[in-house]
């Protein structure tokens, strides 16, 4: 993997004596979309503001391309695109006027502004409202203009705080496609409450709870080594462990088992072995804890089994 664009090293932040983010370590590389999850008040917005350079950490370091953002705040100008929770739109301007200002503000050369704005308009599908005053547009349009201002200068790092807020289902699908596309050439950090968005857009997920990083790992689940097996007739553990692909077998009830596979084996191997042994299978599916279960376990304060 390429070196990280964004690194957070033991980053902490307090407000009025209350620790909002504590010793947060994160890294995001180019070509990666990181989903930041957490209940309200978990510290997501504060963490994202620090990633974007809008807020300095009390302790630790935020590094962009290996350089400390606190010592080089000007890095944020060209290298970071940030969509806060409320899109920072100037309601009295048209979409194009606003995006032109954002491009210039982020250091796009005068001669390149038109092309940059047109590219952002095309990517966010804003052509229909390009000449309209932002103040009269619906929330969905405004959200998309907010995303456009975050990408207009083609930054290395794109930080999107709740970008799906206010979008209808069709627009939300378009946003997922856009985030995936952005993730190919940029490093993207995305916060959302919508777990399907995370599953659809993100390569990795980080879950914050009470200011601490409680879980980080790949979004894709189900490709692991544990399967849930249902059979028509009762089996014994010995029968299952005698099959070549099976390493462990733990009963869930009389007709259901949690089966651990040997390295190199997969569900197809197990299915073939079971059929070959004359076992009638009623259920065979991944038994990794899904993202939602992990999230709920953390949010409810339970210790997560590794």
């Amino acid at each position, binding site marked *: 993997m390429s070196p990280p664009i964004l690194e957070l090293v033991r980053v902490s932040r307090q407000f009025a004596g209350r620790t909002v983010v504590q010793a947060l370590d994160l890294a995001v590389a180019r070509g990666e979309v990181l989903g930041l999850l957490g209940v309200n008040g978990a510290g997501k917005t504060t963490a994202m503001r620090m990633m974007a350079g809008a807020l300095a950490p009390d302790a630790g370091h935020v590094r962009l391309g290996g350089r400390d953002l606190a010592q080089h705040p000007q890095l*944020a100008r060209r290298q970071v695109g940030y969509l*806060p929770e409320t899109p920072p739109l100037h309601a009295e301007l048209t979409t194009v006027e606003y995006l032109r200002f954002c491009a210039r503000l982020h250091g796009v050369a005068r001669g390149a502004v038109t092309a940059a704005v047109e590219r952002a308009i095309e990517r966010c599908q804003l052509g229909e409202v390009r000449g309209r005053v932002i103040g009269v547009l619906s929330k969905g349009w405004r959200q998309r203009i907010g995303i456009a201002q975050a990408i207009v200068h083609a930054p290395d790092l794109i930080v999107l705080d709740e970008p799906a807020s206010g979008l209808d289902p069709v627009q939300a699908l378009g946003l997922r496609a856009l985030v995936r596309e952005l993730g190919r050439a940029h490093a993207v950090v995305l916060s959302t409450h919508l777990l399907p968005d995370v599953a659809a857009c993100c390569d990795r997920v980080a879950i914050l709870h009470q200011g601490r990083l409680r879980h980080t790992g790949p979004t894709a689940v189900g490709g692991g080594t544990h399967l849930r097996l249902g059979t028509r007739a009762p089996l014994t553990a010995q029968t299952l462990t005698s099959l070549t692909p099976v390493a462990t077998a733990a009963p869930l009830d009389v007709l259901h088992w949690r089966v651990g596979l040997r390295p190199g084996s997969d569900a197809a191997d197990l299915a073939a072995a079971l059929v070959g042994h004359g076992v009638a299978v009623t259920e065979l599916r991944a038994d990794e804890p899904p993202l939602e279960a992990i999230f709920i376990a953390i949010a409810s304060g339970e210790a997560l089994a590794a």
Partner: protein
Amino acid sequence: MSAAGLIARHEWRRLAAQPFAWTLAAIVLALMAWQFLLAVQGFLDLAPQLAARRDAPGVTDLVAIPLLRSFANLLLLLVPLVTMRSLAGERRAATLPLLLASGVGDARIVLGKYCGALGFVLVLVALVALMPLALGLGTALDYGKLLAAVLGIALFAAALTAIGILCSAWAGQPALAAAAALALGALLLIVDAGARLQGVTNAGINYLALPTHLEPFLRGIVASVDIVYFLLLTALALLLAVQRLDVLRARPH
């Protein structure tokens, strides 16, 4: 273009897109034009008596300077209305993060906001100054005195604008920012009123008062001490505004 210049130009564009700025400009210019016409009519009525006196005051003293003095008083009210939205409005509309996360720096943001607002105010100063200057087409004006007065008004406006930006940085609501700027301007206007009633005219408290430094300009006297006062006041207010923005950067909302 520098980031401060870009923000200043953007402020202009935003002001031009709002009916509020145009309405404000129209009201101020109509009010000043009406006062100007009344002053010219009064001068014409007095002209025969003035012609009989050897050292009678001219049109500059009787029309131009009173008009500019009256405009200076109006600026105390006008400038807070121009500056109130510059930062407080950004905070209320949750648009400040766009600037804070742009890596531009607090000083440049404040300077850009200041230059944008000051540009608008100075255009109004120039338009009002054109009224008495137009009399030069038909009569003799004391241009030196007039230019000194316009310079004084411009410096006065610059200081008031800086105070307005400071109040806009401190307040979370534009209306509160306008009220605070008006109160601060009024305080600096009358801070030495009590001392003057006691006959004290050359103490430290007099130095703090705005009229102490504006009046010499209106009398045609350009003194470096007065220029320095306005520049110091402007710089101090802008520095405090930068500090305030730094504090806002560290707040959650």
